[in-house]
């Protein structure tokens, strides 16, 4: 079982890295690029769990350590 966790800055929280990358894209001739946000991607393997338990455990990992709910949002996928 493999979990893929996507962590992004919460809406409304300042994202200076996203802003800087957006400016660079515009400067490079990609004016269509908007709402650029930089986040984190975490991959991990889970052993001995069924899908629903794997979801539960991954969600707990996000809430306890992987994500700071004050500034970040997250979503994840579980692949068998």
């Amino acid at each position, binding site marked *: 079982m493999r979990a893929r966790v996507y962590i992004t800055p919460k809406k*409304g*929280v300042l994202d*200076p890295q996203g802003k800087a990358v957006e400016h660079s894209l515009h400067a490079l001739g990609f004016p269509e690029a908007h709402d650029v946000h930089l986040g984190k991607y975490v991959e991990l393997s889970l052993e001995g769990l069924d899908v629903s338990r794997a979801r539960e455990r991954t969600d707990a990992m996000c809430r306890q350590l992987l994500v*700071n709910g004050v500034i970040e949002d997250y979503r994840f996928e579980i692949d068998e």
Partner: protein
Amino acid sequence: MRWGVVTFPGSNDDHDTQYVLEHVLGEDAVSLWHKDRDLQGVECVVLPGGFSYGDYLRCGAMARFSPIMESVIAFARAGGLVWGICNGFQVLCEAGLLPGALIRNRGLRFVCGQVHLRLETTDTPFTGRCARGEVLTLPIKHGEGCYVADPVTLERLEENRQVVLRYVDASGRATAGANPNGSLNNIAGVVNEQRNVFGLMPHPEHASEKVLGGEDGLKLFRSVIAAHREGGDRRTAAVAPGH
């Protein structure tokens, strides 16, 4: 009084803080190791600056789960004095002992230099010996010092006078130009609602001797000593290890 300075792997201002406490102020200061749980009966715990656990994942995110932090959190919840400087401030936010979070500086650059700070409240054990509105000069050195909190939290912080220090210009005005990292409301330091947990990005321990460019940092240390002597905060870290 008896102070404890925590050392996490990657802390780098722990010895400087202990030096100021012991050799400049003549206090009793012990080193607390991140793997221990015993707070050794200290009356104020300092979480120092540095890059605990390499700042991996998020600044302070890993340190918050070290064994010593279990005891520090219990100590703080029991009313004990806990003071986080720079990385220590980040750890306290991650641990939920202080509201908000510290993110990458708005300018994306590591900032290093002296800043002016307006003291917003003397109603804390950390600032009782200062004057309200007083402008202190302290050094900063950080890449993730931009203080953020949701609008409701921010409003509550201001209403309860939990903002302790604000970045200002030399004449004491909180302008955008005086804000080195983009912190909301120019916030440089906050206390919790109970006012026994304090976090700030600037470094009072690096402004505690004239030879290092200033002594304004001593005002904060001396406030804690005075508050303790006056009996306002006599709680010691008698929290049982592991609780």
